[in-house]
């Protein structure tokens, strides 16, 4: 953010967030991020294919530990993210307002909603299993039950318009259910995502659970869609229908679960429902005989 008084500002280098660390792009590239009026805001890292693959490796490495934690514990960590976000509320308001070109009041509402949404999703961690799991009344001397489990590594192309609320709305449901995430931030509005990385790094979230890339959707997303160690992909932030189709085609190679390009940008201020929670879940049914 530009300094407003006479003090010479310390300018920040915006980097990626991968495996709990803040690397520059291995490609050494960066790109200019402007505000909504076209004025220079910052240089952000321009992620490459290698960065995407490194992020997937980090997400895979973090997955067993994260999905293996108790739901209670995962919920606590997500609550903690909300706390840390609250503490840096004004910074997010600045970045959202600048990037989205919205009024300060509107940006405040959006950031507040993002914090509240994290709290809402945090509470789901230890409830979704009760809502979508079941014991099944089978016709025979068996006990069987169905439990939801995380799908694994989820790649997300973040919403392009809603740079924080949209981002939180797609990342939070994936992680509270035990998945790990590689998210490609909104291309033209990446600053809230980068700052979110700084929040995550200090919020008890194990490194690698969320990995944040900044860069070009058209360049990075195909590597995520075609990656054989990615289990699901969310194309919500893909604006180009033709690219969306190509990404779906690539995702078919290992039968990734796909959240398609939506017809129109979702209304992130609306009640999100549990659709994005269940989208990243598998159902496992376990049988055992009953007898003495």
């Amino acid at each position: 953010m530009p300094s407003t008084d006479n003090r010479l500002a310390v300018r920040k280098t915006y980097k990626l967030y991968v495996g709990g660390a803040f690397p520059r792009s291995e490609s050494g590239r960066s790109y200019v991020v402007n505000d909504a009026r076209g004025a220079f805001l910052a240089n952000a890292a321009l992620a490459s294919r290698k960065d995407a693959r490194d992020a997937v490796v980090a997400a895979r490495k973090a997955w067993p530990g994260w999905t293996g934690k108790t739901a209670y514990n995962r919920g606590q960590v997500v609550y903690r993210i909300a706390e840390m976000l609250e503490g840096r509320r004004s910074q997010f308001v600045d970045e959202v307002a600048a990037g989205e070109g919205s009024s300060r009041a509107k940006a405040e509402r959006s950031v507040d909603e993002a914090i509240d949404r994290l709290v809402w999703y945090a509470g789901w961690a230890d409830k979704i299993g009760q809502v979508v799991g079941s014991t099944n009344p089978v016709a025979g001397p068996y006990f069987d039950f169905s439990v939801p489990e995380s799908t694994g590594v989820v790649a997300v192309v973040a919403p392009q318009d809603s740079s924080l609320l949209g981002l939180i709305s797609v990342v939070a449901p994936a992680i509270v259910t035990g998945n790990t995430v590689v998210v490609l931030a909104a291309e033209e509005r990446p600053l809230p995502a980068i700052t979110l990385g700084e929040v995550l790094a200090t919020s008890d979230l194990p490194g690698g659970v969320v990995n944040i890339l900044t860069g070009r959707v058209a360049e990075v997303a195909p590597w995520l869609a075609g990656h054989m160690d990615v289990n699901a992909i969310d194309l919500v932030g893909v604006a180009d229908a033709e690219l969306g189709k190509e990404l779906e085609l690539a995702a078919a190679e290992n039968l990734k679960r796909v959240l398609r390009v939506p017809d129109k940008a979702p209304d992130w201020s609306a009640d999100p429902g549990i659709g994005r929670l269940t989208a990243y879940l598998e159902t496992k049914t376990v049988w055992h005989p009953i007898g003495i």
Partner: protein
Amino acid sequence: MGKFEYAPAPESRSIVDLRSSYGLFVDGEFVEPKDGRMFKTVSPSSEEVLAEVAEAGPQDVDRAVAAARTAFKKTWGSMPGRDRAKYLYRIARIIQERGRELAVLESLDNGKPIREARDVDIPLVAAHFFYYAGWADKLEYAGFGADPKPHGVAGQVIPWNFPMLMLAWKIAPALAAGNTVVLKPAETTPLTALAFAEICQQADLPPGVVNIVTGAGATGQALVTHADVDKIAFTGSTDVGKAIARSVAGTKKRVTLELGGKAANIVFEDAPIDQAVEGIVNGIFFNQGHVCCAGSRLLVQESVYEEVLASLKRRMGTLNVGDPLDKNTDIGAINSPQQLAKIRMLSDVGEQEGAERWSAPCDLPERGYWFPPTIFTGVSQAHRIAREEIFGPVLSILTFRTPAEAIEKANNTPFGLSAGVWTEKGSRILWMADKLRAGVVWANTFNRFDPTSPFGGYKESGYGREGGRHGLEAYLAKH
């Protein structure tokens, strides 16, 4: 102890009234295919031609989809759930009434033992229609919103291993939710689906609600790519599943896929060995191993390997292989010459790659397609027979030392459909069940199915679940 010899106890064929030729079932009637092409369906146990069946071309698929669309708009989609429920109850009852006939027909056309068709397949088929009949008037309680809506026309493509059961898995939830369907049965096993068409007529199901288009891959492709199909459900190979996933890319079509598997059946040293051996046999030799969730990779704890192997070989020696219609038969015919060739090819590769083959001594009939129950020992994880789905009565045996190693090996595959665990220790069962990446885990049992229980795969075994409340989800649009 030698093998007990049973006198043949064949089930009568006279209960089945086979027509020499069948048309397509479209809009409530059997109709001729537009281009008049027919193909033959044979009994895999005798190579006898059972009937001629129509091959649906693109125009026929068009006609069936149009009939389904009309029925969706005019009758079924807007019918009160309680009436849909009654139709499904009717169908379930007729299936029970005609159960013996359907079992014989299934055994004849598929090659599976009459014992399995009679005791497993057909009772489960009826149970699925009963189960989903009860959902038809309760959809608002299913947890998918207050006013869940059907998608419209469902295109469904099913395999040849459980022709009637897969039909039930697909059609029952689709109709309960208010969709209409066009179903393509497998080219080698169309007869029970055509009998089901008659059952729909008997039940006075409104025309067009269920349409059956027989044919091979091209027919299935025409159905899956049809622009007016809203939802696709497929059970079959992973390769075809991927092709379907590609074909719907960029469209609005919903898809569920039940694909291949390479299930680990894991036996710990504290397992009751006799029961475990029964479970191994059931896991891989049930339905000639033509089961996507078959326990085709046996993982035995090293300390009991010799004991399990000896017991398994002894048990395999008592399996009756032969006439599927004989009530004593345990293992019937391989469904088709193509499948037999694939099983032979992969078994040969197993030997070439250094694994040791052992087949139960048994006399195979002269005519028909047969493969003896076979095991491979000395198998490593890199062997093709340990990685690829064989879909036949062929078991690969590997060993492990620790539970962690068992998990590592079990999960080391792109598939994730099912798994088995055999141990007396309850806490270990739950630990294993938690760590196994598979949609179904059978502990101290194997190959159990029930309409109330969600079934489906992780990873490349497909997406979506069939059965239970979860099975409805695929056929409902959420609001």
